[in-house]
C-alpha cells in the first residue's frame, strides 16, 4: 500500500486510458478507410451498369438508323442500291438455288486428324459428360457434330410447349441457373459443385446462355446435349440474347465465325431456328414461374401458352415509318373506344415480319406505295436474279398485307402473288400469319422487363424494350395464377442473386466476374421441399481468392475507370463545347463543379461525377481545371494512330460498336472482309444519319489508310484493331488460364 501503489495504479490507469484512446483512433481511421472503399465499389458498379445499359440503348438506336435508312434514303447510284440490297435481303433470301437444309450436316466430313469429341445419336449421358470434359480441356467440337446436335435439338424443341410444366416429387431437387453469357467456367463449376444433371437432379437454365463471354458455343452444346439426354429433367428458357440480331452486336456471331470459319454461317442460320423454338417459361409445381426478364401488368399466361412462339424470330426489328403511320391511324380510331392504358412502349417493337422492311427495291406493282418514296426504281435494274425479285415482291406484299390487317382495313388479296412458297423448305414456308402485335408485346415483356421498387408499370427506356414492373404488378400476377413466387434473371447482381417485391421475385445470375474479375459473384438456386429456395454462391477465378478486398476492388475499379475514360474520349468534341460554355471569359479554366455538370450533360450516365472526380482528373490546382489539356491527356491515352484526323477518329471510336454491327451485316458471306467501297458507303450513310460532319475526302483517306495491304479490301478485324477494339482473350498480365473478357 502507500503512495507507491497508488502511483502505479495511476500510471496503470493512465496507460489503460491511453490504450483505449489509441485503439479508438485507429478504429475510427480504419472505418473511414473502409467506408471510402465501399463508396468506390458502389461507384464502380454504377459505371459498369450505366455503360452496359447505354450500350443497349445504342443497339436500339442502330435499328432506328436502319429504319431511317429505308424510309428516307435515296440511293443515287447502282452501287448504293446494290449495297442496300445486300444489307437487307441477304438474311431473308436463300442463297442461289441450293436451299440450305437444317439437316445438311451429313455431307460434312470429319478429318481423321480430328481429336475432339465425337457425337452419335441418340445421345447417351456419357456423351454429354464427355462433352463437358472435352470443353474443359479446351477442345472444340467439329462443325458436323455441332450441326447434327442443333438439328436434333430443334426436333426436340418443336415438340415442347411455350410454358414447360415441371413437377417435383418430395425429395427431388430442382436447380435454377441464370445468365451464363458464354462463361464456361461458371457452368463447369455449377456441375462440379451441384452435380451433373440426372433423372434425380433437374435443372432449369433461364436464358442468356450466349454473348459477351468466349465460350458461348460450348455452353450451348453442353446445354443442348443434356436436354436431349434428359428431356424430362433438363429445361431451357429463352433469354433476350437468344436472338440473332442481338448476337450480331454482343459477340456470339463473331465467336461462331471465328471458331467455324467454313461452316459458321450455316451454324448461325441453324441457330436462328433453334433460338426461336426455345420455350418461353417454366412452371414448377404450378407454383413457381421461371422466366428470363420479368412481367408486365398485361402479362397473360394463357395467351403466352397459346401463341406460336417460333414466329418471334427476333425481339428487335426494323420498324418502318409506313407502319408507324398506319399504326397511328389505327390507334386514333381505337382511341374513341378505349381508355389508354399505362405507357408501354410501342415504337421499337413490332411483330417480326419475315419479309423485307420497305426497301428501295420494292418492285410492287402497287403504285400507291411509291407515293411515300422519292425514288422510283425501274424494274429493269441490275437484278439478274429473277428469283430474287419475285421473292422480294412476294415478301413485300406480305408485309403490306399485314399492315393492312393491323390497321383494320379490308383485306385485299392478290391471290396470284400469294402462292405458297414451294421453293423454300424453310420451316415457316407457307405460313402467312405473323404474330399479332399483342402476342409480340407479351413475348418482349417477359424477355426484357426488370422489377422496380415503386408500384406500377412503366416503359423500360433504359433497355429500350419491355417494362419496369412494381410489386403490385407481381402480386397481381401471382394471385391471378395462384403462384408462390417468380424466378427471373436478366440483371447482374453483386451477390449473384437478389430478392425483391417482398421476396416474391428472385433474380438469379450465374455469370460470376461478369464485368471484370472480382466484380460479382454468381449464384444458383435450389428449390427444396415446399419449394423453399436455397441459394449457392460462387466466384470462379482463383486469382480473386488471394487478393484482399482492397485489391479486388482496385482491379475492378481500374477496369471501370478505363471504360469510362474511353467514353469520355469518345465525346471529346462535345465536352469541349460544353466546357467552353462555362468559360465565358475564355481563360481556359473551369471550376471542378462546372466540370462535373458539363460531363453529366454530355454523357448522361447518371454517375456521381464529384465522387469520381479524383480518379478522372489528376491535374487540377485550386479547384480549377485546364480543360483543354485534360482532354489532350485523355486523347493521348486512347489514340494509337497519329495519321488519322483525330476528330474523325473520335467519332468512329464513339460509334464503333454500331459500326462493327453494320460491318458484320454487310459482310454477308462472313468472310471478315469488306471492300473499300462498302466501307465508304457505310460510313457515308451512317454519318449522314448521325449528323456527323465528315467530308468525302476524309472518309476516303481513312479507308485507304486502314487498307493496310492495299488490296482494296478492309479486314474488319484489322479495322477494329486500329482502335484496340478486338476483345482480348486474356486480360493483361494474367498468366493463368483466365477466360476473362472485356465486355461491351
Amino acid at each position, binding site marked *: 500500500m502507500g503512495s507507491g501503489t497508488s502511483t502505479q495504479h495511476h500510471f496503470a490507469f493512465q496507460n489503460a486510458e491511453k*490504450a483505449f484512446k*489509441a485503439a479508438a483512433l485507429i478504429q475510427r481511421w480504419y472505418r473511414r478507410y473502409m467506408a471510402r472503399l465501399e463508396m468506390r465499389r458502389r461507384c464502380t458498379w454504377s459505371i459498369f451498369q450505366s455503360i452496359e445499359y447505354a450500350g443497349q440503348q445504342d443497339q436500339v438506336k442502330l435499328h432506328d438508323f436502319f429504319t431511317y435508312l429505308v424510309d428516307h434514303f435515296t440511293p443515287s447510284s447502282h452501287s448504293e442500291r446494290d449495297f442496300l440490297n445486300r444489307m437487307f435481303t441477304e438474311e431473308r433470301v436463300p442463297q442461289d438455288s441450293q436451299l440450305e437444309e437444317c439437316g445438311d450436316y451429313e455431307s460434312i466430313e470429319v478429318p481423321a486428324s480430328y481429336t475432339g469429341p465425337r457425337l452419335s445419336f441418340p445421345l447417351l449421358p456419357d456423351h454429354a459428360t464427355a462433352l463437358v470434359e472435352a470443353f474443359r480441356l479446351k477442345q472444340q467440337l467439329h462443325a458436323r457434330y455441332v450441326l447434327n446436335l442443333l438439328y436434333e435439338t430443334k426436333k426436340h424443341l418443336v415438340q415442347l410447349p411455350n410454358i414447360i410444366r415441371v413437377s417435383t416429387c418430395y425429395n427431388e431437387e430442382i436447380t435454377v441457373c441464370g445468365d451464363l453469357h458464354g462463361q464456361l467456367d461458371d457452368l463447369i463449376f455449377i456441375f462440379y459443385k451441384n452435380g451433373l444433371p440426372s433423372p434425380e437432379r433437374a435443372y432449369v437454365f433461364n436464358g442468356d446462355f450466349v454473348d459477351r463471354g468466349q465460350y458461348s458455343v460450348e455452353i450451348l452444346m453442353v446445354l443442348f446435349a443434356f436436354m436431349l439426354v434428359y428431356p424430362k429433367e433438363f429445361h431451357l428458357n429463352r433469354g433476350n440474347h437468344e436472338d440473332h440480331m442481338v448476337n450480331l452486336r454482343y459477340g456470339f456471331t463473331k465467336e461462331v465465325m471465328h471458331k467455324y470459319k467454313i461452316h459458321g454461317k450455316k451454324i448461325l442460320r441453324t441457330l436462328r431456328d433453334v433460338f426461336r423454338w426455345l420455350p418461353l417459361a417454366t412452371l414448377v409445381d404450378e407454383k413457381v414461374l421461371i422466366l428470363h426478364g420479368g412481367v408486365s401488368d398485361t402479362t397473360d399466361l394463357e395467351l403466352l401458352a397459346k401463341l406460336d412462339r417460333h414466329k418471334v424470330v427476333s425481339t428487335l426489328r426494323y420498324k418502318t415509318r409506313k407502319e408507324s403511320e398506319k399504326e397511328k391511324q389505327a390507334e386514333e380510331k381505337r382511341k374513341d373506344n378505349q381508355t389508354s392504358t399505362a405507357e408501354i412502349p410501342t415504337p421499337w417493337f413490332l411483330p417480326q415480319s419475315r419479309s423485307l422492311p420497305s426497301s428501295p427495291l420494292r418492285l410492287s406493282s402497287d403504285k400507291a406505295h411509291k407515293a411515300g418514296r422519292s425514288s422510283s426504281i425501274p424494274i429493269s435494274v441490275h437484278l439478274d436474279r429473277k428469283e430474287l425479285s419475285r421473292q422480294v415482291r412476294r415478301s413485300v406484299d406480305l408485309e403490306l398485307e399485314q399492315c393492312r390487317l393491323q390497321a383494320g382495313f379490308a383485306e385485299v388479296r392478290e391471290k396470284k402473288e400469294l402462292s405458297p412458297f414451294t421453293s423454300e423448305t424453310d420451316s415457316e414456308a407457307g405460313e402467312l400469319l405473323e404474330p399479332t402485335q399483342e402476342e409480340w408485346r407479351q413475348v418482349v415483356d417477359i424477355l426484357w422487363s426488370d422489377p422496380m*421498387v415503386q408500384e406500377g408499370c412503366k416503359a423500360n427506356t433504359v433497355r429500350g424494350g419491355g417494362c419496369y414492373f412494381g410489386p403490385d404488378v407481381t402480386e397481381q400476377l401471382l394471385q391471378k395464377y395462384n403462384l408462390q413466387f417468380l424466378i427471373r434473371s436478366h440483371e447482374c447482381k453483386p451477390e449473384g442473386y437478389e430478392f425483391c417485391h417482398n421476396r416474391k421475385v428472385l433474380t438469379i445470375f450465374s455469370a460470376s466476374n461478369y464485368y471484370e474479375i472480382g466484380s460479382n459473384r454468381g449464384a444458383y438456386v435450389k428449390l427444396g421441399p415446399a419449394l423453399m429456395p436455397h441459394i449457392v454462391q460462387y466466384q470462379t477465378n482463383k486469382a480473386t481468392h488471394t487478393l484482399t478486398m482492397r485489391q479486388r476492388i482496385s482491379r475492378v475499379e481500374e477496369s471501370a475507370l478505363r471504360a469510362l475514360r474511353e467514353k469520355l474520349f469518345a465525346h471529346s468534341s462535345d465536352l469541349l463545347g460544353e466546357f467552353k460554355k462555362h468559360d465565358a471569359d475564355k481563360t481556359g479554366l473551369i471550376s471542378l463543379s462546372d466540370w462535373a455538370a458539363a460531363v453529366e450533360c454530355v454523357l448522361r450516365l447518371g454517375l456521381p461525377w464529384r465522387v469520381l472526380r479524383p480518379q478522372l482528373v489528376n491535374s487540377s490546382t485550386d479547384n480549377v481545371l485546364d480543360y483543354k489539356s485534360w482532354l489532350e491527356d485523355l486523347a493521348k491515352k486512347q489514340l494509337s494512330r497519329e495519321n488519322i484526323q483525330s476528330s474523325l477518329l473520335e467519332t468512329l471510336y464513339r460509334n464503333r460498336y454500331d459500326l462493327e454491327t453494320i460491318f458484320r451485316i454487310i459482310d454477308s458471306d462472313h468472310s471478315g472482309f469488306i471492300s473499300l467501297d462498302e466501307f465508304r458507303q457505310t460510313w457515308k450513310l451512317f454519318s449522314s444519319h448521325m449528323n456527323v460532319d465528315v467530308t468525302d475526302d476524309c472518309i476516303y483517306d481513312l479507308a485507304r489508310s486502314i487498307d493496310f495491304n492495299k488490296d482494296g479490301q478492309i479486314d474488319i478485324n484489322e479495322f477494329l484493331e486500329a482502335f484496340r477494339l478486338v476483345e482480348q482473350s486474356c486480360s493483361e498480365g494474367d498468366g493463368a488460364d483466365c477466360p476473362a473478357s472485356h465486355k461491351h
Partner: protein
Amino acid sequence: MADEKEREEIIVAEFHKKIKEAFEVFDHESNNTVDVREIGTIVRSLGCCPSEGELHDLIAEVEEEEPTGYIRYEKFLPVMTKVLLEKRYRPVSEDVILRAFEVLDPAKRGFLTKEELIKYMTEEGEPFSQEEMEEMLSAAIDPESNVIHYKDYITMMVVDDN
C-alpha cells in the same frame, strides 16, 4: 459583408451537390431515402471521420421520430451541410495514427503481433466486429511473420486512399 455571404452561398451550393451525389449512390430505390446503415459510409466518403458514437448522434438527428430504418434526404441535407461547414469530424493525420500504434507498442518493436492487434481492436475503444477484424487482418498481416508492421501498413493505406 455581402461578398462573404455570397461566397458562403457558393460553398453551400457546392456542398449540396456533393452531398446529393453521395446520397444518390446509396438511394437504390430512387426515392430520396437510404438505409440507415449506409449513413456511416456516406458521411465518411464526404471526408469526415466520426467515431461510432458521433455517428450514432448524427443518425439520431436525421432519423424520423418513429425510426423507419430509412433516412430521408430532406432531413439529411441540412444536417450534413452544417457538419461540412463546421468542419466537424475532421480526420487526423497519419502521424497521429502512427503514434496511436506506438502507444500500443510500448516496447517500440515496430510491430504488433496478431494476438495483440486482435485484443486491442476487439476489446478496446469502439470494438471491431468479427468481420471488421478479419478484413483488417487480411490486409495488414505479414503472412510470414504473422505480425503487423504498422508503419508500412499506414503508408499503404494512405497511398491507396489517394
